[in-house]
């Protein structure tokens, strides 16, 4: 009955409903995200203990429950809580599962490396994946891929084949990252999600190109490092590698990323200054997320909130690591992203 009403409303008004409840609760939760002013105050805190106390006052449950020494565990717990919440408010599991897939691919990389390079995977495993970590570990160990979802199995097999060929640990990352973005792109249903993947792919590829340039790599290397193209085709990026960095903004003039590239270069003291790259590309994504403010019934606000919250956790980590190691406040502020709230 409910389904039918939803269907009519959706068809009549061309917006898929169902996320209305999620949107409502997210609009409240968004007000509890850390604001720019709060982040600035945190950056000014005298020591990690004070920063942690300020976080607790700002309403972060994790900060109130544990000591600052346990900040890393608290962040992991907060991430888990975020996905539990997301699952509980979304009418269908697909979209949240789609976001969680990123952690599955990460865990796949971890277990591949753990198995083939004989490393200890414990510290590197995310607990929020869609597929239980043990299942992935088991599949990698026994090479029985059929136990895993198809996309993970495919990525795992391809990565192992590539590793057997090159014997380079990097093969795992390159292949699995590529498969991950390909999978995310294939399974993005809503236009918003498709746009988001395109943005992710473009930013990842630009970042790879800039870093390859900075490390003086050749085209063959970059070709292996690239993930599926977003709006900028691979050929274009590979060509860019031949040009000096000064000409990149001109060459990317008609893409949305010209200013990003220009900003990275403008702060150059060395061949490529990558220090600001992560922050700038995160801000780019945040700007895209902010555009979801007007959606009401679709999954956009939920997705935007999850990603914004992930970035908030990152900001908290930057502050805590900075405070523990005594980085000056100005430097911390330089690293902090603009706030979504």
């Amino acid at each position, binding site marked *: 009955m409910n389904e039918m009403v939803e269907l009519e409303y959706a068809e009549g008004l061309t917006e898929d409903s169902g996320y209305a409840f999620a949107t409502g609760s997210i609009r409240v939760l968004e007000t509890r995200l850390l604001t720019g002013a709060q982040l600035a105050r945190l950056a000014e805190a005298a020591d990690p203990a004070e920063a942690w106390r300020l976080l607790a006052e700002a309403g972060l449950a994790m900060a109130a429950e544990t000591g600052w020494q346990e900040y890393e565990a608290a962040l992991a717990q907060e991430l888990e809580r975020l996905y539990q919440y997301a699952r509980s408010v979304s009418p269908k599991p697909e979209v949240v599962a789609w976001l969680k897939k990123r952690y599955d691919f*990460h865990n796949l990389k971890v277990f591949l490396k753990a198995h083939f390079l004989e*490393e200890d995977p414990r510290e*590197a*495993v995310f607990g929020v994946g869609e597929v239980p970590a043990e299942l992935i570990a088991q599949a990698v160990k026994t090479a029985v891929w059929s136990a895993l979802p198809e996309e993970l199995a495919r990525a795992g097999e391809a990565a192992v084949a590539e590793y057997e060929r090159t014997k380079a640990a990097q093969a795992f990352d390159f292949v699995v*990252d590529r498969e991950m973005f390909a999978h995310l792109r294939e399974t993005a249903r809503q236009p918003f999600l498709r746009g988001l993947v395109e943005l992710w792919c473009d930013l990842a590829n630009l970042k790879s190109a800039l870093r390859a340039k900075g490390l003086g790599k050749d085209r063959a290397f970059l070709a292996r490092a690239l993930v599926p193209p977003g709006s900028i085709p691979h050929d274009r990026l590979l060509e860019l590698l031949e040009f000096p960095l000064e000409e990149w903004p001109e060459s990317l003039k008609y893409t949305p990323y010209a200013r990003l590239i220009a900003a990275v270069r403008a702060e150059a003291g060395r061949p490529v200054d990558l220090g600001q790259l992560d922050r700038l590309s995160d801000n780019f994504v945040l700007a895209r997320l902010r555009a979801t403010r007007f959606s009401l019934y679709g999954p956009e606000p939920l997705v935007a909130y999850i990603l914004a919250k992930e970035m908030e956790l990152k900001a908290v980590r930057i502050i805590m690591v900075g405070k523990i190691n005594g980085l000056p406040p100005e430097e911390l502020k330089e690293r902090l992203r603009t706030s979504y709230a």
Partner: protein
Amino acid sequence: MAEVRVNVTRMELLRQKKRLAMAQRGHRLLKQKRDELMHRFMELVEESRGLRERVEEALASGFRSFLLARAEMAKEGLYEALMTGGDSREGSLLAVRMDSVMNVQVPRFALQDSREPYAYGFATTSAELDRALAAFAGALPELIKLAEIEKAMELLAEEIETTRRRVNALEQILIPQLEQNIRFIYMALDEMERSSRAQLLRIKDIIRGVA
């Protein structure tokens, strides 16, 4: 001075003199060796001071970048990126051969690692990690050079110490002792000569008196 136990013979005197000459030559040589060792040591000190500063600077900037990478990435992400399998290849990264400096065996290290430090994907890691690893990788050859120099300094210092002790032993104990021995033998021989001469004179007198 300690009790001198030497045979008072001319043979012995000759032997002692030979020993003294030898000790003096050894003393001179050891002193030269000590001076040369000191010279080398000071050179190494000079070299290591500059090198140490450079290495410390490189490591400090590496750690700073690493710190930032650590802040930018989730703990899990960073651990994943740095799972490189250690060195799973055959043989070691470092070739060691021994070299002789003034007869002191000092190790020489040669780094045999041409591998990339960047053994992770670029799509999901922080660019700051590149900088950290570049700094660390750049510091590694100098760090190894520094280890080499400091080990050499340690070995040289030991050698200088033993040489100095030997020089001192020659200078303070053996040479004075030999000199004293010689003096003693001389005196004893003189004494013996005098007494035998006196005996002879006396015998002569007695014979003359009898005659």
